[in-house]
């Protein structure tokens, strides 16, 4: 029984560390340790139930062990901010009035496309629509809308992100790499590698952010007949 208890503690700890390392994308609405418990409990309850060669006490003691760990972690989390940060992590502010925080995205194993996807799920289609965007410690996405949000009917597409061109989207917008380069050079960015994100909507509005700097928006003239 003690051996099973220790094995449960070890498995739990390893799973928790792995879930924390994997970042918020792997988590639903639960805190990381709650997800670990859900994963473990299902198996712990299932195996001794289905395998008659295993005494049921083994499963019960392992579940009791997980319960004890849960109670201890919950108490630690409630009583101390430091433990709360270690056990459940902290919210990540990935978008501010300055633009996208690429470092925070990287820490959560995400890129700009993941952020835009989460924004779309929340009903926002342009990076310019929000003042703040946060990935909560339970994996939820929270957003603070801009007060002067434009009601654009055109969805922005990514022309470049994380220092790379999005060639398919360049085709849609009928821009080539040289045109993008000359546009960003006019804005003081001399290499595509320095571009954190560049989007363009169907009205010609560009959202451009150099890595580590504040974003800017400006308009470009779209070629005739281009619409999306």
């Amino acid at each position, binding site marked *: *029984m003690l*051996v099973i208890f220790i094995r449960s503690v070890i498995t739990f700890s390893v799973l928790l560390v792995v879930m924390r390392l994997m970042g918020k994308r792997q988590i639903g609405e639960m805190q990381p340790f709650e997800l670990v418990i859900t994963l473990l409990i299902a198996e712990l309850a299932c195996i001794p139930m289905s395998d008659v*060669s*295993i*005494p049921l*006490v083994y499963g019960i003691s392992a579940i009791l062990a997980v319960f*004890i760990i849960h109670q201890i972690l919950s*108490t630690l989390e409630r009583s101390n901010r430091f433990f709360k940060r270690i056990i459940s992590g902290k919210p990540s502010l990935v978008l501010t009035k300055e633009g996208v925080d690429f470092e925070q995205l990287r820490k959560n194993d995400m890129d700009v496309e993941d952020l835009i996807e989460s924004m779309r799920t929340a009903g926002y289609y342009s990076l310019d629509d929000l003042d703040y965007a946060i990935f909560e410690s339970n994996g939820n996405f929270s957003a603070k809308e801009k007060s002067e949000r434009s009601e654009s009917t055109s969805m922005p597409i990514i022309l470049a992100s994380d220092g790379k061109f999005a060639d398919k989207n360049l085709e849609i917008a009928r821009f080539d790499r040289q045109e993008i380069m000359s546009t960003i050079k006019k804005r003081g960015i001399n290499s595509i590698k320095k571009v954190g994100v560049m989007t363009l909507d169907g009205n010609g509005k560009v959202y451009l952010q150099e890595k580590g700097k504040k974003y800017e928006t400006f308009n470009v003239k779209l070629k005739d007949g281009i619409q999306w």
Partner: protein
Amino acid sequence: MVKSIITTVCAILILAFGAAYEQYYVFRAFDDLKEQAEIMIEKELSKTATYEDASLVRNQWMKEKRKMCSFVSHNDIKELDMWLSEGVAFTKEKNFDEAATKYIVIANLCESIPRGYLIKFENIF
């Protein structure tokens, strides 16, 4: 808060008492069986073992194993059942050498199975 502390303490106590009882009970039960197996080995080697002696050991084990199923892997119990049955059968046929080897295996199993319940590096990993 008080409720969670009480439930946590209760769960810890259940586990602690359960673990202590398991350690005590499993070791005592296997020690008893090992002692009986060693007596049988001596009797088999001196060719004085009888079918009644072997049956007594097996019946004793049958009573014990009903409780043991809660703590010990059922496969381990089945293995002991098998060796004991063979020991009884060889004793009945007065094949003392074969019967002695079966009881030697049982004595070894009685040493090795409880070792699997100790808090040791090889048991945890």
